[in-house]
């Protein structure tokens, strides 16, 4: 019993946790890039762009995450099958990352919009006065300052994202929750296995939230 746990099941859970973290990390990076694009589209974009960004946020926020995941996974399979003419099984990791990144971006967009809006106007004007292009002013002056303001909300979203990766288990990717379901089927001890998984999730989310709190304190050095 103990040996089984150490050699087989324990390892399977650890691998699951590693998959959970990889999905979360890739989705975080993709979602952040999309979120910044959405935020800037809402602030600087022309009307059609701004309205489409607003509509995107409203739709993704109004629909459960599972629906988005199913739509991308099953919808993607059908689309690719029609496109190539033969049955294509879409990669669970890719579909999961895409779905979570799209969801993350909808929420992150508003956080970045708020943060960019809080950077004093004088900063943009000063950058232009120095002869910086609009692009340089945004990436070198505005965005670095907006990061500090976005950090608390961003950290919250990152923790929600880690918890959302558990939803990917419905499309069969063996992340931490799916691994626990497989093991509890084999051991017939679901309560024990799911409790271990819960503790692993709790450890991960606690470390990440501690990290973001420290990052927040660090980034606020020198500000009252």
């Amino acid at each position, binding site marked *: 019993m103990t040996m089984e746990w150490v050699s087989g099941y324990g390892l399977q859970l650890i691998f699951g946790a590693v998959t959970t973290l990889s999905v979360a990390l890739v989705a975080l990076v993709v979602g952040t890039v999309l979120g910044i694009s959405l935020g800037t589209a809402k602030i600087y974009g022309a009307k059609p762009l701004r309205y489409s960004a607003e509509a995107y946020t*409203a*739709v993704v*926020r*109004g*629909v*459960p*995450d*599972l*629906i*988005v995941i*199913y*739509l991308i996974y*099953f*919808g993607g*399979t*059908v*689309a690719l099958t029609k496109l190539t003419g033969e049955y294509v099984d879409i990669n669970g990791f890719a579909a999961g990352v895409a779905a979570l990144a799209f969801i993350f971006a909808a929420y992150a967009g508003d956080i970045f919009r708020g943060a960019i809006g809080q950077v004093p106007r004088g900063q943009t004007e000063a950058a232009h006065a120095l002869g910086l292009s609009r692009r340089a002013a945004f990436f070198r002056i505005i965005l670095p300052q907006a990061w500090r303001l976005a950090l608390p909300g961003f950290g919250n979203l990152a923790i929600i994202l880690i*918890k*959302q*990766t*558990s*939803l990917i*288990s*419905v499309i069969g990717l063996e992340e931490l*929750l799916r691994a*626990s*379901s497989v093991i*509890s089927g084999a051991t*017939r*001890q*679901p*309560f*024990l296995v*799911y*409790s271990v*998984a*819960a503790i692993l*999730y*709790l450890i991960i*989310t*606690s470390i990440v939230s501690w990290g973001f709190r420290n990052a927040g304190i660090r980034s606020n050095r020198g500000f009252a």
Partner: protein
Amino acid sequence: MLDFSIMADAFPNLLKGAGMTGRLSILILLLGMMLAVPLAYARNAQSVWLHGPASIYILVIRGIPSLLQVFIVYYGLGQFGFVRNSALWPIFRDPFWCVIIALGLNSAAYTAEIIAGALRQVPKGLVEAAQALGLSWFQTQRKVTIPLAVRAALPAYENEIILTIKATSLASTITLLDLTGAARLEVSNTFAPYEVFLTAGAIYFCITTGLSWLLRRFEVRLSAGHRNEERSVKEFQPVLPGIPDH
């Protein structure tokens, strides 16, 4: 591109699923609120024996995914013989009640945090004034603290309502035919994921967006004369006659 006849065929079944989503949401929110109020008071209490367990409960629930909580209640509890032999087994065997218990316990933690925050926003001076007038603790709560806290908690609680409605989609993972479950069933019958999931998504969107619009109107009515320009709990500033701003 989209086959509208599939959408039209699926629609009645999806609406039936939406009814289940509605029932689940109401019961989850009720259970969550019932547990959240004592939890919130415990969280704000002076005694470590009260605020310690409440804080740990909130921390643990918020640190693990809600789908895992659903699995622990539905699959996990059945592992124990004493649960299977108890009078409560018909409840723990039924996915409907398992979702309500799991998500209700989950919603309680988030709601408690909202209520605890709102209770802390009520100015101390008002509570002291009520005590000076000779009101008992219960009277102070009923006449001063709770009315003010409700207004402060409302925007965040509206958000919690919308999140709960979306969270009920997890019920589909343990065989319940809520809106998401009904959509999955339709997809397995028609294999038209775009049509069905887009229709289901549109129904969800109408429910959440419509409800959030209604709630906001309700909130505006409730705070008539106490209009907070910033709709946030932190900005809560009661406007009371005869009490100078500070």
